[in-house]
């Protein structure tokens, strides 16, 4: 066999190898896609396309069935930001976040800390504290609708026995948003409690043992071990609660329908009404984009702020 021949054989061998590799790459690409395709298709149809379609619609006037008619540029945006009703809705939404997020987290943290004690029957209390997670927004709203009822509701009855004047929980503009917030906090507690308890249980118990040896007190341990070690979980819980607050809808629909005088017309309720009651899909889409940007900003802000404060193990 001559030298050139050998070289040729090696060369064709290499080409074959290249081709086999290439074939394999293509094959593994298609295999990967086959596994991912169902998710990708559904995300495209029910998430990415609707998102872009919302942006598109927000630049148009629409017919009652939602088809775009006239391109109006930024007019929908200009209109909503000069509409006192929408500005009111934005203000209420931010206030709602402010009322519900810190309170939900603090109450749940308190419950998680007391439910993390090693006591007999603690499992029962954990189940009770997480139970509101299983209560749907419709059921929770119905419970509180009765509690807030002006004449026979339990809350006003209790106030009455102390000789305090009845409060128009859902009808008084001063109280309505607070009442909706109370309902929301109650609904939030189950989930946030469960996550925070998980965070507490994952803290290394040797940290507490060495603190015990040094004779550290309960509050000292809480401040120096529990809270710092819990910060990644806190960070997650706060982000999720904020995003949930921005997306609240059901409790508004059942408790107040956005009233009194638009006091509880939170952004999702506002865009729902604009689209499916007033049939102004363009303007509703502009509101949806505002909601989208708000949630995006909140997530980004949380990550930025969280990075510095969070203590990673």
């Amino acid at each position, binding site marked *: 066999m001559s030298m050139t021949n050998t070289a040729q054989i090696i060369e064709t061998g290499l080409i074959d190898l290249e081709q086999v590799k290439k074939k394999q*790459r293509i094959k*593994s*690409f298609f295999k*990967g*896609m086959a*596994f*991912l395709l*169902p*998710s*990708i298709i*559904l*995300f495209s*149809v*029910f*998430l*990415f*396309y*609707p*998102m872009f379609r*919302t942006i598109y619609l927000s630049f148009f006037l629409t017919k009652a069935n*939602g088809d775009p008619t006239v391109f109006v540029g930024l007019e929908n945006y200009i209109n909503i930001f000069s509409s006192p009703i929408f500005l009111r809705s934005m203000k209420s939404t931010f206030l709602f976040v402010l009322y519900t997020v810190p309170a939900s987290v603090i109450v749940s943290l*308190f*419950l998680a800390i*007391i*439910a993390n*004690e*090693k006591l007999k029957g603690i499992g029962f*209390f954990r189940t009770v*504290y*997480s*139970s509101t997670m*299983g*209560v*749907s*927004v*419709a*059921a929770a709203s*119905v*419970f*509180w*609708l*009765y509690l807030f009822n002006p004449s*026979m509701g339990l809350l006003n009855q209790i106030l009455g026995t102390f000789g305090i004047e009845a409060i128009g929980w859902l009808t008084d503009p001063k109280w309505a948003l607070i009442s909706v917030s109370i309902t929301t906090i109650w609904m939030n507690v189950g989930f946030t409690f*469960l*996550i925070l*308890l998980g965070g507490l249980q*994952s803290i290394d118990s040797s940290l507490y043992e060495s603190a*015990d040896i040094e004779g550290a007190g309960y509050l000292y341990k809480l401040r120096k071990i529990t809270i710092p070690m819990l910060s*990644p979980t806190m960070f997650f819980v706060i982000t999720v609660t904020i995003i949930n607050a921005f*997306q609240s*809808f*059901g409790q508004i*629909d059942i408790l107040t329908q956005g009233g009194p005088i638009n006091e509880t017309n939170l952004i*999702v309720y506002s865009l729902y009404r604009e689209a499916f009651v007033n049939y102004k*899909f363009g303007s509703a889409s502009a509101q*949806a*984009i505002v*909601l*989208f940007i708000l*949630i995006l900003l909140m997530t980004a802000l949380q990550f930025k702020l969280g990075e510095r404060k969070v203590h990673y193990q």
Partner: protein
Amino acid sequence: MTISKSRKVFFYVILILSALILAGPMIMAIVMSFMTNKDILTGSLPSTFTLDNYVHAFERFPLFQYLFNSLVVSIVIMIGQLVLSSLAAYAFVFLEFKGRDLLFYVFIATMMVPFEASIIPNFQIIRDLGWIDTYTGLAVPFFATAFGTFLLRQNFKQIPKELREASQIAGMGDFKYYVTVVLPVSKASLVTLGIYGFLSSWNMYLWPLLSTTNDTVRTVQIGLKQLQTQEQLNEWGVIMAGAVIVIIPTLILLFFGQKKLQKGLTEGALK
């Protein structure tokens, strides 16, 4: 760590008080659902025990139909999510191919799009497909879930790589490996995701409100809203009976799955 007796008592008092306050609205609803309307209206304590409210709720409203609809939709969504996210998670963990990392970021990006912000085109899509008032329209948009994919991906990553290598030597293909090895090994996290999927589908409100217009497919959550808005005589007992029926399935599920959920949600959340 030994806990002194007084400290123990102190904790039990706080635990019980907190439980009573938190469960208060639920206890109240359950008690009211067994009270006569007269007792409720006069604000007295329950004097007689009655099942009338439940009888009325079922008589005046197609509650069985609503419950059945919710059950079908929730189970279909649960199964859809389990299949799609386990397939996707398998690809992200066991398969290597061009564009995988990019697709992973696409999955992360989906978590930033709130469903509420894309509800208008979604409604139009369902309408144009003729899926209004169908189980398909209620369920299919929720099959793909990034959260579920990440949760299962975390779990699949813990399966030893040697296992895949051994199966490859034995000539086992990816799909067979996924079905016969990966899924059975990950049963626990599949159950967690299943519980979570069922819970959140059962409790869904905005989408069923938009995509159903009649009783044949209407879910129990919207049924409860109907019950509440149509009971004009202030028959709170009947409304509460309806609400109690709505929450019983999820409370039972939560009761059995609480530990699993806690573990799964924390892991899924904090990679």
